[in-house]
């Protein structure tokens, strides 16, 4: 059962990579301006060189051929060359990924620490004023665009990871709090309380095990949120990560680079959500 689930997720990731790649290739091919190349305007090039450039563009006209050619090269580790930066895409990704992973990782840790601390304490204390205060804080953060939070973090000299945490915290908190509130309203909790069990015991023995699979699923989704938040944070805080690279590629219409980043990010988020689903399945199995 578990093996089947893992295999299904593996197939989904593979299919997404292949279909996403084809879609990306088609979008790049049909994007306005694909047929033109600035290099063709270079006065230093002779007619033979210009003809060769045109010929290379012509070869990319067939999407299927273009896609399989890109796929073939990707398997060999060649993801093409960035038009705007003039460097191999694989080198750019290798250089920038560690910073983004660190930023997203710390951001997620901070966000989840705050989410669990606030949601659990609100559920445990059950003081309406405390609950209202935490809801107002998360609600306010939810109404501020991620890019503004990134700008404010620059103004206040706050680390980028904290900005990412502030962007994803309200989304995580809202769901975590609702999940805990729903779990607390279940009959077995009322029974446990009537039997005189301490609040701490109820929380860790009867509430957390019930909500753990859903919290894990939320954790998987928050990876996607954190990667999305990395774009404005890295772009506006001047951090040379994958988010900033994607932004620069978008501004320069460097489509091959942008498509590679997009596919990589899609695979990472799929891996995160699939892992959360498999772990949640294992937890549910143990509970049963």
């Amino acid at each position, binding site marked *: 059962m578990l093996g089947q689930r893992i295999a299904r997720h593996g197939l*989904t990731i593979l299919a*997404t990579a292949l*279909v*996403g790649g084809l*879609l990306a290739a088609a*979008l*790049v091919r049909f*994007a*306005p*301006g694909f047929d033109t190349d600035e290099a063709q305007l270079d006065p230093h090039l002779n007619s033979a060189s210009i003809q060769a450039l045109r010929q290379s563009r012509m070869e990319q006209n067939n999407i299927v051929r273009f896609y399989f050619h890109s796929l073939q090269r990707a398997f060999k580790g060649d993801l093409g060359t960035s038009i705007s930066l003039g460097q191999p895409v694989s080198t750019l990704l290798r250089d920038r990924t560690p910073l983004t992973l660190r930023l997203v990782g710390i951001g997620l840790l901070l966000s989840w620490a705050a989410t669990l601390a606030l949601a659990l304490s609100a559920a445990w204390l059950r003081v309406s004023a405390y609950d209202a205060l935490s809801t107002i804080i998360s*609600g*306010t953060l*939810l*109404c*501020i*665009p*991620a*890019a*503004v939070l990134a*700008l*404010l973090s620059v*103004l*206040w000299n706050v680390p980028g990871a904290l900005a990412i945490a502030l962007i994803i915290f309200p989304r995580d908190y809202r769901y975590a709090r609702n999940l805990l509130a729903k779990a607390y309203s279940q009959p077995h909790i009322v029974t446990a309380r009537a039997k005189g069990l301490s609040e701490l015991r109820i929380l860790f023995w009867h509430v957390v095990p019930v909500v753990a699979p859903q919290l894990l699923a939320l954790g998987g989704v928050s990876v*996607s*949120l954190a*990667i*999305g*938040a990395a*774009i*404005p944070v890295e*772009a*506006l805080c001047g951090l040379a990560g994958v988010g900033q690279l*994607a*932004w620069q*590629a*978008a*501004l320069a*219409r*460097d*489509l091959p680079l*942008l*498509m590679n*980043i*997009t596919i990589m*990010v*899609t695979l990472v*988020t*799929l891996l995160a*959500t699939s892992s959360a689903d498999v772990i949640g399945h294992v937890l549910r199995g143990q509970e049963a």
Partner: protein
Amino acid sequence: MSVWRRVACAVLLLVAGLSLAANVLAPAGYAKQYREAADSGPSSAHWLGTDEIGRDRFARVLYGTRISLLLAPAAALLSTLMAALVGGLAGYLGGGWARGAMAITDLFLSLPWLFLLITVRALMPLNVSPLVSVLVTFLMLGLLGWTSAARVLCASAGSLRDSDFVRQARASGVRGARLFWIHVMPNLKPVLYAQFWISIPAFILSEANLGILGLGVAEPMPSWGSLLKELEGLVSVGSEPWKFVPLILLAVVVTSFQIVMSKQEEVAA
């Protein structure tokens, strides 16, 4: 209706009313430059000061609010209609159709929203006229924002397909498009309505993010995104507090939408 929802509705109506009256309140328009008073603070002539090329910030806030408040609901309407068509139809047809449609929505949903937006935005020409940039930005939001709503609608339509009244209609000889439009779609209205309301603040915030990143509405056309881009040049938070007016306005409007739609979210879930 609770007091808070009434207040939120009143705030939205007030802001919408003020933005629609922009021609009267700021007749000089959003693009007129007062070069002699560039980058000035609030005064009787310019209530919120001027930007770095001397344009009246108050006028720009009013016109920007109009654009964001008119086009975000338009984009939400487009995405809701697309979700109804794709999700509703897939759920109604069921089987392979539903699985195929959901696989496509999963593909879209597996990509972080902002990544998807900047990727698609980059596929289109960036050097376009301001009006085209407005249309492209909000059209893109509408055309890409339907996936999560489609999931909900597919599930709702799927449950309606097996409901008693649809079976009865089918037994009475009602088939195909008529069954879908007359019997299934009207029952999806509450979910559609909820998805529409949920999408508006999400699109307002997305436009703001795109605008700050320079991938949204092009100058000189104002929008909340392009107005918030001004915060990039701030030295400290307290130095020019009037530059935060667009942010405060956006937060108030988004909060008001959240309060108004608080009941709708339960329907959508």
